[in-house]
């Protein structure tokens, strides 16, 4: 016992360092750039009011009111498109307009904060689009604000398709160049060329089908066993993002519950 005490006293600094690092790293590993939970909601509410104010000051001179009115009108039109029988959205999508009041685009695990929350109908899991291009998804909400993670987050996969009837793969950003992602697991037999659209499949329940992720980049695909990894040029310009729409396919909860059923019944 005395030896143990002597050991602790002798190495107290290193022991405290290890304990504090263990706590910090377990926090880091458990969140992994995916800010969720009670504390995040609290911080989001406290800070976003201030960030919203800064955003308002900096954008006051840029006719933001008119922009927002146009955005809302755009959202209404998109919702009407969703009600049309000839639309790709097949009666399933509604759009909410929002403004990005804070964002990080230069890290490997980026996020953005929107000025719309539960009061405006924003829900966790909703897809975020801008000018018709997919941006990311909502992962946490409060009454007035919400946090989303963009396509340029190296911990997330997105279900994507090349063209309307093309091959389906797993779209991912691996860090580094913020203008391109990589579409994995495309069969070697798939036919495509640079400039072809890469669009959402709608399988994840985050986006409706046929929302643009980007286009096949003008680079050679990489061979990976039986598959190809195809570089994709993002359609969105993340660093200049300001106004976005949130879309709800109403399928997310259904897909989640089905996946839950599958997982529970799996041997």
């Amino acid at each position, binding site marked *: 016992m005395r030896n143990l005490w002597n050991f602790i006293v002798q190495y107290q*600094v290193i022991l405290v360092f290890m304990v504090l690092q263990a706590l910090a790293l377990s*926090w880091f590993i458990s969140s992994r750039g995916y800010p969720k939970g009670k504390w995040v909601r609290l911080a989001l509410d406290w*800070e976003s009011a201030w960030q919203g104010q800064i955003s308002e000051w900096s954008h006051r001179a840029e006719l933001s009111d008119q922009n927002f009115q146009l955005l809302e009108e755009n959202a209404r039109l998109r919702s009407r498109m969703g009600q049309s029988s000839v639309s790709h959205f097949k009666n399933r999508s509604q759009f909410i307009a929002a403004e990005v009041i804070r964002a990080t685009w230069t890290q490997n*695990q980026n996020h953005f904060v929107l000025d719309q929350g539960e009061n405006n109908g924003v829900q966790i899991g909703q897809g975020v689009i801008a000018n018709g291009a997919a941006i990311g998804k909502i992962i946490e909400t409060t009454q007035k604000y919400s946090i989303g993670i963009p396509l340029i987050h190296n911990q997330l996969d997105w279900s994507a398709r090349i063209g309307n009837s093309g091959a389906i793969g797993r779209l991912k950003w691996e860090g580094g160049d913020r203008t391109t992602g990589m579409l994995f697991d495309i069969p070697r037999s798939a036919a495509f060329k640079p400039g072809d659209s890469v669009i959402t499949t709608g399988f994840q329940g985050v986006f409706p089908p046929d929302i643009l992720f980007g286009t096949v980049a003008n680079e050679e695909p990489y061979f990976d066993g039986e598959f190809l990894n195809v570089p994709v040029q993002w359609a969105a310009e993340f660093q200049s993002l300001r106004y976005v729409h949130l879309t709800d396919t109403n399928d997310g909860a259904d897909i989640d519950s089905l996946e839950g059923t599958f997982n529970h019944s799996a041997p």
Partner: protein
Amino acid sequence: MNPALLIPLQLLLTCALQVLFFQNMALWEGYGILTFHTLGILLLPLNTRPIILMFVSATVGAVVDLFAFGGGLFTSSAVAMGLFLPFINRLLAPREGYEVTDEPSIKSMGIQWFSIRTIAALLIHNLWMFSLEAGRWNLILSGWGKAVTSTLLCWLLFTVVLQLVQAKGKKR
């Protein structure tokens, strides 16, 4: 001002400025990230006990993590810096040791001492932070590049801020 008041005030102010302003600044495509809260840790008295230094660093880092949605990244980096800061202080100590009245500022210790200490401590903080943040081996090198450039930018910022805030005094 009474040091018992000044120290918490410095920590609070640097944290607040980081959370409210500097966390939104990412210059040069992510190669210029400012961590202003580390100035509060660097300005802690030279005779602060290493364990206290680490606990204060952890608290400061956790506050920034909470508001910057860092998820422990800033806490871990600040604790790493807190571990090495006493060693850096010891390496840079004058031959006769530090005097009771010495403060870790440009005014008290001179620009050369302040610059070496600040750059060394920030390098540890930023190398730790960007290596963790990279998350992949192929991104480590660009992470280290970001650590070096961000360190130099922070050092420049801290020097300017301290020169503006603190009156010019006699160097050691």
